[in-house]
């Protein structure tokens, strides 16, 4: 990476210049720099509305970049050490889908851990690829699912030598990394592509002492949530390609589903965030890591809570750990993570990223302050003082091994019928059941309903977890294949 190049932000600069030229708009969007929608302009601000413009020659076109967007994408590729970068405006969901659609065709096998984001399985519904799941091992005390063990990957590759790709979470929501360099080596030796879901890994490319990034490890394609640790606007994302991947083909795939009216708010936010990360990323993530380490120390001093970190590393299923993640195991105070999550918001005006059955996760970034951390720690200490009870009857197992009967696509498009969730044991689900966040499906289309999975869903809902993906929003009933 050449730091001098990164002083520039081609899209943002072109927008600034465009604003100065005071071009009279007889094109879309119809709000015409905000004048046609005063209330919205007052709400979002004139500066924002003035750059909500359409593709045009001086501003390039996201579907077919030839000038400033092309330059900005080249800078992003340079910053991330990739051969090519695409700006994405449909969230990292769109990056994940493009990555899978670009590597698998209907009937192709793809090896992946089951604890993937639902956008991954959605992509399988779209393209008809067949998932070969690897059971992510569960950390028994914490109940969180981990990375893939190298041995499992190897066995899977041997059993399915015709698989075309393998997908790796780098890291998981909890900050856990698999042995990516070894997986890449293994997959490439068998002619398979390696796709990395780096929705939670933007900072791996810029911070010091971080787990290895997808591009650095030699992965072929990576989906990057710039709007998470990268600081860009919600819904903006990056798709990175390594050497040897056909960028022109990937662009065609992206254009199958991507809007032709890419938002310049999102595009310019990607451009400016890349500049910031390239110039200041190292310092930024040093600060974030220090804050997370401090918070972990303080939380562990309270007692009963366990804010876990690198000590979990075991060289395989926890090959590395992202220390910017602040996850806390809460079961020893007798509360599920989701319950602590709710108390923090309802009683202490503190919103954290998510709570699951046994843990909470607070998302730290450069926007955090020491004062905010003190409030979180203070509130956790109060919650322990006020709410602590016996942990009897608390469930901790988070991962339930699914019984896959058919592909997500076949199940999703099969004739289905509605049955009560309670009496659905033995049937095959035609839909997703996903606790959101973290957005990892408990049940995917094509998987069998077992007593364990139903118990898990009901227990999670009882504790206040929010289930999404089903036709019946109350989840009293579920769609199953006829």
């Amino acid at each position: 990476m050449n730091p001098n190049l990164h002083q520039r932000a081609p899209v943002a600069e072109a927008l600034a210049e465009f604003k100065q030229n005071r071009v009279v708009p007889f094109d879309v969007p119809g709000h015409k720099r905000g004048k046609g929608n005063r209330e919205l302009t007052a709400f979002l601000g004139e500066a924002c509305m003035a750059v909500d413009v359409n593709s045009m020659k001086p501003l390039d076109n996201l579907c077919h970049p030839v000038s400033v967007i092309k330059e900005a994408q080249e800078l992003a590729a340079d910053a991330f050490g990739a051969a090519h970068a695409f700006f994405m405006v449909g969230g990292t969901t769109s990056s994940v889908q493009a990555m899978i659609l670009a590597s698998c065709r209907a009937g192709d096998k793809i090896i992946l851990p089951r604890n993937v984001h639902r956008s991954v399985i959605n992509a399988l519904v779209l393209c008809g690829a067949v998932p070969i799941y690897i059971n992510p091992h569960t950390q028994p005390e914490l109940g969180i699912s981990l990375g893939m063990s190298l041995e499992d990957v190897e066995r899977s590759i041997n059993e399915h030598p015709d698989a075309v790709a393998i997908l790796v979470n780098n890291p998981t929501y909890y900050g856990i990394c698999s042995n990516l360099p070894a997986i890449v080596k293994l997959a490439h030796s068998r002619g398979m592509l390696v796709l990395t879901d780096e929705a939670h890994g933007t900072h791996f490319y810029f911070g010091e002492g971080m787990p290895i990034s997808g591009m650095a490890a030699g992965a072929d394609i990576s989906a990057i949530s710039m709007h998470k640790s990268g600081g860009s606007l919600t819904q903006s994302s990056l798709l990175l390609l390594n050497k040897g991947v056909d960028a022109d083909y990937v662009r065609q795939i992206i254009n199958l589903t991507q809007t032709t009216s890419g938002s310049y708010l999102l595009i310019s936010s990607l451009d400016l965030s890349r500049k910031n990360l390239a110039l200041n990323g190292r310092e930024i993530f040093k600060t974030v890591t220090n804050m997370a380490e401090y918070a972990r120390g303080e939380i562990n001093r309270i007692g009963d809570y366990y804010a876990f970190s690198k000590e979990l590393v075991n060289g395989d299923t926890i090959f590395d750990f992202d220390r910017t993640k602040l996850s806390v195991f809460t079961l020893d105070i007798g509360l599920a993570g989701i319950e602590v999550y709710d108390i923090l918001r309802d009683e202490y005006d503190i919103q954290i990223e998510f709570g699951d059955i046994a843990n909470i996760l607070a998302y730290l970034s450069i926007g955090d302050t020491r004062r905010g951390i003190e409030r979180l720690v203070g509130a956790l200490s109060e919650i322990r003082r006020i709410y602590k009870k016996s942990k009897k009857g608390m469930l901790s197992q988070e991962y339930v091994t699914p019984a896959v009967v058919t592909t997500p696509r076949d199940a999703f498009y099969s004739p289905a019928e509605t049955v009560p969730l309670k009496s659905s044991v033995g049937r095959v689900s035609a839909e997703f059941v996903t606790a959101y966040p973290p957005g990892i499906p408990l049940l995917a289309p094509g998987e069998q309903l077992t007593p364990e999975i139903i118990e898990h869903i009901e227990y999670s809902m009882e504790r206040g977890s929010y289930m999404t993906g089903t036709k019946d929003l109350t989840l009293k009933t579920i769609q199953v294949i006829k």
Partner: protein
Amino acid sequence: MELWFSEMHTKDVKFSIRVDRQVVSIQSDFQRIDVFDSPEFGRFLTLDGYMMLTEKDEFIYHEMIVHVPMAVHPNPKRVLVVGAGDGGALRELCKYDCVEEIDLVEIDEMVVQICKEHLLFTACGFDDERVKVYYEDGLKFIRDREDIYDIIIVDSTDPFGPGEGLFAKEFYGNCYKALKEDGIMVNQHESPFYKADALVVQRTHKRIVQSFPPCRIYQAHIPTYPSGHWLFGFSSKKYHPVRDFKAKRWNALGIETRYYNAHLHSASFALPNYVEELMKNVEPTE
């Protein structure tokens, strides 16, 4: 030459004091600290442009935040003061011989330094050997303390800045834990008059009553604070601020004050109807 310090009390109300000269202006890690001399109010301290105290009227605030709890508690030995880097509350506390230890937690060491240099009329409170100063976030300091203080005085700035944590529910809960079973917490409770301030009063009150048995409000007149009408909160696990107040006992101490006295003690808990209303709206219904 016309030189004025102005503070916006609302976006449509401005309060100004003619300034003779600016004594100090410095940016600390936490805030901008300014000291001015003025013909009417004497020397005054502002943080991030907000009035903290003036030489002329600080006695009202400091006497009211200290003597009210001190006159109710029968035997206060260990006192914690949170915030208050100017030392004014310490000066009043040191008038009591029964007090054995005073801990002061201030997040911004520079405030204390500036006050020691330029605001001797309050910073004289630091000279007493019973005072121990900790430069820490108040919320962090209190987290580890349990069952040790007789009185906690929360002399915070406003809730939008370094003092934010001192208005949080977890802070009041931690104070509850740090107090002995007959402990008292008093806090500056902002002004009920202007709408935005009144909302802060309500939020603060709501958060305190969630941790403490009834928090009683009392008031004082402080000319240089927004609207001049200022509130304080009195929360105790045991004592009622008026019923458990022994005028004779306090008078016998012979403590010299300019604002506070035994009559005013009880009277300050008599509130205007609109203030009662504000509080009632956020108190849990029985």
